[in-house]
C-alpha cells in the first residue's frame, strides 16, 4: 500500500484530539518527532501493526467529530497516517455515517426525530418551528433524524454540542423551545435512573423478570446488582462448565430477540465448536428499528445483567474478547455501560481470571455513528473493523466467519439479558414460561396512540389485544385503525388481529412478525399515506447502497408511494400497484441483506390488510 497525502497538515488541536484515542505518535511518519534509531526498526512504523489498529477508526473519528463538530481534512489525513488507512477509504467511511460530517457544520446540531411514532405526536410542528427560528434544515443547526429510540415519549430529539467535552442532550418529549435552549448548553446532567420508571408502566410489579431492576436498582452500583441476585448466574456457569451452559441454553429454547428469532443455544454451540481462533462475542445494541427502545431501557436500567450475559456467552463459547456495539444516539446508555464495565473490571468480574475460574474475558464498548444498517450483524462487524457498514454476503455465517474473520456469536441485548435468568432458574423451567414455540418473558415496545406507551414485559402468549389493553387502550378512547408490528421492517395488521397471540408461531402463521418487539398503534385520525411515505423514505435513507435491488428499489418504491399519495399515477392505479409488487419482489428475492429483503413488507401489508389507497378513493 502506497499512501499519498495531499491535504492540509493537522492543527495541534486536531492532533491532540486524535491522540486522545491513539496515544502520542511513535514515529516521524505518523507525525511524531524524528528518531532515526527507533525508526530504523521498521516494526515501529506503520505496516502490519498500524493496519491491525484499523478497528480504532470509528472511535478516533468520534473523538474528532465531537471535538470540532466535523472531521476536518487535516485531522483525517493524520488519522490515516497513524492507522495506515488510504485517505480515500477513510473519506468513504466518514461519509457513510450520518453522525459524522466531512464538511464544516455548526458546533451544535439538533437531531430531530420525524420518524413514525414522533410524527404522529407533533414532530412536524417542531420542525416547522425550528425552520422559523434556526433556519432551513440544510443550513446546519438542526437535522431530521430517523427514530431515536425514545418513541414511548415522542416526540424526541438529540442535541449534540461539540467542544472540548461534548455535550449530548437527549430530549423526550421534546419541544422546540427546549431544543433551542439545549443547543447552547455547555453542560448537561442527565436525569437519574429513577426517571426510567415513566417508560416502564408496569414498574413495581414484583413478577417482572427482565425489567425487575430497571428504575429500582442503581445501575451504577455493582454491589446493589449483586445483592439483587446479580452474578449468581456467572458463578453457576463456572460450575456447569461451557458444555453445561450451552445445554441449559439449548433446553431453555431461547430464541434471539433481535428480529431473526434464531435459537441462541444453537448459535453458541456452533461457535464453541468452530475450529478457528480466537472466538468473539458481540452484543448487538445498535437498536435502530423504528419503534424499538427496549434495549436502551435494559442498558440504561440494568447494564450489569447484559454484561453478565455477555460474560457467560464468552465462557460458553471459548471467547476471551467481547464487543458491545451501541448506537451513537444513546448517550445515557453509553455512560452507564462504560461505568458498569469499569466497575465490573475493578471487581474482577471482567479481565484476567474472573472469580478465580481460570476464565479471562474483556468487553469493549463501541459506539455507532448513525446508520441503521449497522444493526445487521455482518454490517456491524464491518463497522467495528473500521469500515463502511456494508453487509456481507452470507454464507459464510458469523458463527464461522464473523468479526475479524473469526467465529463470532452475535446476540441482541435482550437475548443476553435473558441468559442470567436461564442459568438462575434452569433451562427447563425457562422453557416452561410462555408457549411451546416461544419460551420466556418478552419485552414489547408499545408506542403510538395508546394511553400508556412504554416497554412491557409479558410471558409469550398474550394477545395483541391484551397488550394494547395493558397500555390503556387507544388514547382518548378513539378507534383503532392499525398496528405496526416489528417496526419499519415489520408489517401492519388491522383491528381484526387483536386476538392474535404475540408469539413467534402465531405471528408467523398470520404472515406477520414480531421483529424487534414493536407494537405501534394508530387510530383512525392517522394519515396512513404519510406513515407509509415515511417508511419508504426510511429505507431509502438507510440502504447502504451496495446492491442494486435495494439501492435503486428503495428509491423507486418511495417515488411510487409519492405518486399514489398525490394521485399523479403513471398509467392506471392498478399498473402502479402491480409495479409496486414487482419492486417488492426483487428487493425481497435479490437483495444482499435483510434491509432490502424487508423494505417492502410494511407497505405491502398496508395495501393488503388495511386497504390503503383503494382504487376509487384518491390518496389516503
Amino acid at each position, binding site marked *: *500500500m*502506497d*499512501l*499519498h497525502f*495531499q*491535504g492540509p497538515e493537522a492543527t495541534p488541536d486536531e492532533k491532540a484530539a486524535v491522540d486522545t484515542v491513539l496515544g502520542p505518535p511513535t514515529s516521524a511518519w505518523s507525525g511524531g518527532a524524528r528518531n532515526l534509531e527507533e525508526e530504523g526498526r521498521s516494526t515501529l512504523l506503520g505496516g502490519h501493526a498500524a493496519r491491525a489498529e484499523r478497528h480504532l477508526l470509528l472511535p478516533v473519528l468520534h473523538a474528532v467529530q465531537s471535538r470540532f463538530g466535523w472531521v476536518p*481534512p487535516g485531522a*483525517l489525513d493524520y488519522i490515516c497516517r497513524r492507522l495506515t488507512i*488510504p*485517505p*480515500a*477509504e477513510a*473519506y*468513504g467511511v466518514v*461519509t*457513510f455515517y*450520518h453522525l459524522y*460530517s*466531512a*464538511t464544516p457544520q455548526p458546533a451544535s446540531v439538533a437531531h430531530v426525530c420525524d420518524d413514525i411514532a414522533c410524527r404522529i405526536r407533533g414532530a412536524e410542528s417542531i420542525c416547522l418551528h425550528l425552520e422559523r427560528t434556526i433556519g432551513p*434544515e440544510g443550513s446546519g443547526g438542526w*437535522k*431530521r*433524524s430517523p427514530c431515536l429510540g425514545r418513541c414511548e415519549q415522542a416526540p424526541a430529539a438529540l442535541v449534540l454540542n461539540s467542544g472540548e467535552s461534548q455535550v449530548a442532550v437527549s430530549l423526550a418529549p421534546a419541544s422546540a423551545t427546549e431544543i433551542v435552549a439545549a443547543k447552547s448548553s455547555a453542560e448537561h446532567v442527565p436525569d437519574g435512573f429513577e426517571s426510567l420508571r415513566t417508560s416502564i408502566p408496569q414498574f413495581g410489579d414484583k413478577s417482572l423478570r427482565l425489567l425487575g431492576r430497571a428504575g429500582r436498582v442503581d445501575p451504577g452500583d455493582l454491589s446493589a446488582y449483586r445483592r439483587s441476585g446479580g452474578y449468581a448466574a456467572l458463578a453457576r456457569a463456572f460450575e456447569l462448565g461451557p458444555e453445561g451452559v450451552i445445554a441449559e441454553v439449548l433446553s431453555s429454547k431461547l430464541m434471539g430477540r433481535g428480529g431473526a428469532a434464531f435459537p441462541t443455544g444453537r448459535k453458541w454451540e456452533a461457535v464453541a465448536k468452530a475450529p478457528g481462533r480466537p472466538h468473539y462475542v458481540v452484543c448487538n445494541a445498535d437498536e435502530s428499528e423504528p419503534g424499538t427502545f427496549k434495549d436502551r431501557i435494559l442498558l440504561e436500567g440494568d447494564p450489569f445483567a447484559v454484561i453478565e450475559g455477555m460474560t457467560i456467552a464468552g465462557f460458553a463459547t471459548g471467547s476471551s474478547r467481547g464487543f458491545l456495539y451501541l448506537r451513537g444516539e444513546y448517550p445515557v446508555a453509553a455512560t452507564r455501560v462504560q461505568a458498569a464495565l469499569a466497575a465490573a473490571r475493578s471487581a474482577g468480574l471482567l479481565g484476567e481470571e474472573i472469580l478465580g475460574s481460570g476464565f479471562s474475558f474483556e468487553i469493549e464498548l463501541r459506539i455507532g455513528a*448513525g*446508520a441503521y444498517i449497522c444493526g445487521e450483524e455482518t454490517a456491524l462487524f464491518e463497522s467495528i473493523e473500521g469500515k*463502511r457498514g456494508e453487509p456481507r*454476503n452470507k454464507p459464510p455465517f458469523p458463527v464461522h466467519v464473523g468479526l475479524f474473520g473469526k467465529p463470532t456469536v452475535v446476540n441482541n441485548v435482550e437475548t443476553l439479558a435473558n441468559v442470567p435468568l436461564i442459568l438462575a432458574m434452569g433451562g427447563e423451567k425457562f422453557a416452561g414460561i410462555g408457549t411451546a414455540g416461544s419460551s420466556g418473558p418478552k419485552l414489547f415496545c408499545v408506542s403510538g396512540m395508546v394511553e400508556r406507551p412504554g416497554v412491557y414485559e409479558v410471558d409469550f402468549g398474550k394477545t395483541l389485544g391484551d397488550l394494547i389493553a395493558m397500555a390503556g387502550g387507544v388514547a382518548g378512547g378513539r378507534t383503532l385503525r392499525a398496528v405496526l408490528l416489528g417496526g419499519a421492517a415489520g408489517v401492519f395488521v388491522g383491528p381484526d388481529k387483536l386476538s392474535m397471540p404475540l408469539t413467534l408461531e402465531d405471528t408467523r402463521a398470520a404472515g406477520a412478525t414480531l421483529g424487534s418487539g414493536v407494537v405501534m398503534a394508530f387510530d383512525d385520525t392517522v394519515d396512513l399515506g404519510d406513515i407509509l*411515505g415515511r417508511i419508504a*423514505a426510511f429505507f*431509502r*435513507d*438507510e*440502504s*447502504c*447502497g*451496495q*446492491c*442494486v*435491488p435495494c*439501492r*435503486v428499489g*428503495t*428509491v*423507486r418504491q*418511495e*417515488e411510487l408511494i*409519492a*405518486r399514489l399519495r398525490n394521485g*399523479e399515477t*403513471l398509467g392506471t392505479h392498478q399498473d402502479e400497484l402491480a*409495479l409496486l409488487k414487482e*419492486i417488492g*419482489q*426483487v428487493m*425481497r*428475492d*435479490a*437483495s*444482499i441483506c435483510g434491509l432490502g429483503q424487508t423494505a417492502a413488507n410494511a407497505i405491502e401489508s398496508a395495501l393488503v390488510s388495511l386497504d390503503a389507497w383503494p382504487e376509487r378513493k384518491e390518496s389516503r
Partner: protein
Amino acid sequence: MSEQDSLWFKSPPPPHHPPEPPVRKAPEMVAITIDGAEVRIPATATILEACRSVGIDTPTLCFLENLTPVNVCRICVVELAGARTLVPACSRQIEPGMDIRTDSPRVRLARKMVIEFLASSVDLSTAPQALEYARRYGADSTRYGTSRESDTSHDRDTRLPGHHHVPEGIGAETVEQPVKVDNDLYVRDYGKCILCYKCVEACGEDAQNTFAIAVAGRGFDARISTEANVSLPDSACVYCGNCIGVCPTGALMFRSEYEMRQAGIWNESKQTSTDTICSYCGVGCTLTLHVQDNRIVKVTSPIESSVTNGHLCIKGRFGFEYVHGGLDQQADG
C-alpha cells in the same frame, strides 16, 4: 571434532535423479442439478462457473475473472431449491446436491428488475453488455417515469448520508451529473456509473494497491470518490488506467476515446486491434492496441494474459503518443 561437524549446516546430498514434478490432485467432482439436468462439477467451482461449464450464459455486471467477487449487482442471481432468497451465482460456491434453476420466472423477474433499475437511473449508452441484458430480459425503464429534472442532480458529490427531501414530481431520480474532465489521460463520467465496485477493487487490493478511489456516501447517493472528492491530479492516482480496463459501462474512459466520441468520429467498426509486447521495461506485458485511422485510440491488455491479468501501468496504458510522433514525422518527411 571433524571439519564436517564444525559446519553449522549440512549441504544436501547430490540428487540421484531429477526431482519429480509435484502430482496435482484431480479436483473432486460433485453432482448438482442445473435446470433439471444432473451435472458433475469440480467441487471448488462457483455456481457461475458451473453454469458456464454446461453452456448456460449467466449475465454478470460486477463480476470479472481477475477481481474478487463483490456480488453487488445481483444480475446473476439464480434460484436455489430450499433457499429463501435467490443467490448470486458469481460468488456462491457449489455444494453437493444443489438444485439450481437459472431461468425460472423468479429469476427472470429479478434480472429484469435489476437491469430496469439500472437503466432508469444510469446512462447506459456506452454499456453494450448492460443494453444486451436489457433486451434479453425485456426491461422497460420508462415504467418509472421520465428522469427527474431535479435541481439537486449535480450535487451528488457532496450529498450527506441520511435524511433527504422527499420527491415532489413524478419522475425517476437518476445519478446524472457533469463529466469529470480533470486530466489529460482519462475522464470520469459517473452519470454512467452502476456502482459495480470494480474500479475500486482494481485500484486497491486486486491489482494496483494504490487505493486512490473508494465508495463514499450511502444508499442511492453512494458514489466513487477520491479522498475528499479532490480532482484526480490532487489524488493518489498514478494513472495506471486499470480502473478503466475493468469498468463495464464506459463511465471511465480514455480521454482520446471520450474526445472522439464527442466529435462524433469514434467508430468501432473501423477499428482494428493488434497485440504486442510493451517495450518500456522487462516485464513483458501484452498490450492490445486499438487503432482507428492509423492512430492508436486506446490500449488494453487481455484478461487471459498470464503476465498482466489485464492490468497495466501508466506507460503501457497511456505512453503511446510517441508512436504517433514517429508517424507524424514520416508524414511530414
